[in-house]
């Protein structure tokens, strides 16, 4: 190409083209060019041995993986959800990809390839010391490896362990062995079994007894390499009386092929401990015709193992072509509390089948589910939830609220609540509503000088307010902005 480009291009940009541009805009769609260390496509026991060897894992870990793999071979994909997608060829996926520069294990963030650091900077998550986000410790996961963790030493002074899962397997094998798979067993479901066999990295966090973690802990997941699946494994343990607030963010480049992200997250809260887990999920959703995008098939479960323990899930799901996830709580300890607050948005051809499970086992256990679904264009969404009160759960209480908001007339919202009560003293409430953004509401805002797009995002944000207030401050702001971007081009 010559220096002087065709100048007529700019002039011929019509309003329609601008619309297309707006609709396609996914702000984190860039690709980082780094040399990678990649295993061959496909999945066999040898692939797993190779992954385990690359990570210098102790023998118990390899055994655990192989056992999960052998079980996975006997399983088939779940068919009960409402999502539809072409068959996934599990032999056509690359199960491990890491930047070559990470191979020698940089000792500190100073030694990390600047190209990788730049990637996170671009995503708004600076890792370098002088630019770090105050009050938030970040573990940055790039494809199959953790690039680095900020504030690691400072947290270490309090006895808090926070870093990559791979490090934890090597440095704290006793904790990993004790808790890994204790909430989501390897054979739990098809995707969890696959994850257990091939998981590469994720975060590990342990808060010792009585410690209140002084900052937000967070993991930023980035899928970069082509045809690669990301199999994240996260394990968070809050020991007796401990408190931690953790959040995760996710993005990926724009690509025409679908990519698989099959994660497992396990939370364990012992007596009087509290874990707040927040997700802002913004995987590449595919283009406006439904090409490409991440399949986000995730198993997240928290175990309120101790008395008066408390686990809350807050999620804002705006990305991914397909989301299949049901963050759940097992309320084992007496007087324990489980919460689920969710905003899920499906635009264009996105599909989401999401909800929560609350399993009440202990006495006087309480749970709350607040689910807000927004569908635009051809987006399809299902809320699927289970509230199960076991015989032992004397005095258990649940409150569930599912609200759906529709934009346009081609989208869909569906609700599948399952309720099983085996103790007559239990109290279970379920409320559901479906509404459409009213023309009246839009016109009212526009008559006050607010553009249609701003009006939609204002109305949607109002609809989601109950959930956003559960997010840590900085992320509530980010979530609002994200929602606006994701809705761009769906009116007018």
């Amino acid at each position, binding site marked *: 190409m010559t220096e002087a480009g065709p100048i007529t291009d700019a002039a011929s940009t019509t309003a329609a083209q601008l619309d297309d541009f707006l609709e396609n805009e996914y702000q984190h769609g860039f690709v980082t060019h780094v040399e990678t260390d990649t295993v061959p496509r496909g999945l066999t026991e040898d692939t797993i041995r190779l992954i385990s060897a690359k990570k210098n894992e102790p023998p118990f870990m390899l055994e655990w993986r192989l056992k999960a793999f052998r079980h996975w071979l006997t399983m088939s994909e779940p068919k009960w959800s409402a999502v539809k997608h072409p068959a996934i060829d599990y032999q056509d996926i690359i199960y491990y990809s890491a930047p070559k520069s990470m191979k020698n294990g940089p000792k500190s963030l100073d030694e990390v390839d600047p190209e990788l650091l730049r990637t996170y900077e671009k995503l708004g998550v600076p890792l370098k010391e002088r630019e770090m986000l105050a009050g938030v410790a970040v573990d940055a996961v790039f494809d199959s490896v953790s690039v680095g963790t900020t504030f690691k030493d400072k947290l270490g002074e309090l006895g808090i362990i926070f870093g990559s899962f791979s490090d934890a397997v090597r440095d704290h094998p006793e904790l990993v062995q004790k808790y890994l798979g204790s909430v989501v067993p390897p054979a739990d479901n098809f995707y969890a079994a696959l994850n257990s066999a091939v998981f590469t990295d994720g975060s590990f966090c342990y808060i010792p007894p009585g410690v209140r973690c002084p900052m937000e802990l967070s993991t930023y997941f980035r899928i970069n390499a082509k045809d690669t699946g990301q199999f994240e494994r996260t394990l968070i343990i809050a020991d007796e009386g401990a408190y931690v607030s953790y959040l995760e963010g996710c993005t990926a480049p724009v690509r025409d092929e679908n990519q698989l992200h099959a994660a497992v997250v396990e939370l364990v809260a012992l007596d009087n401990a509290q874990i707040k887990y927040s997700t802002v999920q913004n995987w590449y959703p595919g283009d406006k015709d439904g090409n490409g995008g991440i399949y986000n098939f995730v198993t997240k479960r928290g175990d309120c193992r101790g008395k008066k323990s408390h686990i809350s899930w807050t999620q804002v799901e705006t990305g991914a072509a397909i989301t299949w996830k049901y963050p759940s709580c097992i309320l084992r300890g007496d007087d324990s509390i489980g919460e689920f607050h969710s905003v899920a948005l499906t635009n264009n051809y996105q599909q989401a089948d999401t909800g929560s499970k609350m399993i009440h086992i202990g006495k006087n256990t309480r749970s709350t589910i607040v689910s807000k679904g927004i569908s635009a264009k051809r987006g399809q969404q299902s809320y699927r939830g289970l509230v199960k009160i076991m015989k032992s759960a004397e005095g258990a209480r649940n409150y569930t609220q599912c609200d759906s908001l529709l934009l346009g007339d081609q989208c869909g919202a569906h609700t599948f609540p399952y309720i099983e009560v085996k103790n007559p003293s239990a109290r279970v409430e379920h409320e559901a509503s479906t509404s459409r953004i009213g*023309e009246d*509401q839009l016109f009212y805002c526009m008559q*006050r*000088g607010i553009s249609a797009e*701003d009006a939609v995002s*204002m109305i949607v944000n*109002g609809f989601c307010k109950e959930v956003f207030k559960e997010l840590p401050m900085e992320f509530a702001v980010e979530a609002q902005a994200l929602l606006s971007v994701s809705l761009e081009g769906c009116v007018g």
Partner: protein
Amino acid sequence: MLEIKNLQVQVEQKPILQGLDLTVNAGEVHAIMGPNGSGKSTLAQVLAGRDNYEVTGGSVEYLGKDLLALAPEIRAREGVFLAFQYPVEIPGVSNVYLLKAALNNVRKHRGLQELDAFEFMKLMKEKMKLMEMKQELLYRSVNEGFSGGEKKRNEILQMAMLEPKLAVLDETDSGLDIDALQIVAKGINALRSPERSIIMVTHYQRLLDYVVPDFVHVLSKGKIIKSGGKELALELEERGYGWLEPGADANKAASAGARATA
């Protein structure tokens, strides 16, 4: 300020406005009265730019511009304000948030700096006092759970904040008790100025006792059939609209005759 010529509007193929002419100069207050279904609210909605109203003929010039060519939000930013007959509820969006977004959009359009939180609150409190509104209404969701009177006062509050050049008040007096009516009237009167024009669409003369118009127009079957000064409103109060309808007496006679033969 505003020049409406031969305006024809239909809704779902049904003609509502059928050749309406109206000129409003800066600083004037016009009252538009008329029986139900005469097209009063349609006029208000069309001026504000509502969809579903199809303009089939005529023109509307506002400050030298073709008003009908502007998008609703641009009209608002250019200074056209509609006080809604039925203010809309927006759950989860606080009153103060909506107002701030609205005001800053309008200011930006006029080349003014956006107000910071402090300046905004100062202005807000001043106007709330004028409208005798409780502070807590600021933080409640827009119009959600507001009483009828509170909703209408909220409309005038918004108008006071946005300082429009042309305000169209669509039955702002309906559903108000006498106390609320007086407060609303006080708010409107405070906004009267030589640079601002006000069109009040109303069914009753009641509001006009408190906000005295310069002109009164009677709308019937989509046309203005009589215009006059404030005394016309009093006459209407006394005699109703019937005497003004074109060929009113003949119609009455004809329908009576039809009934007799049935």
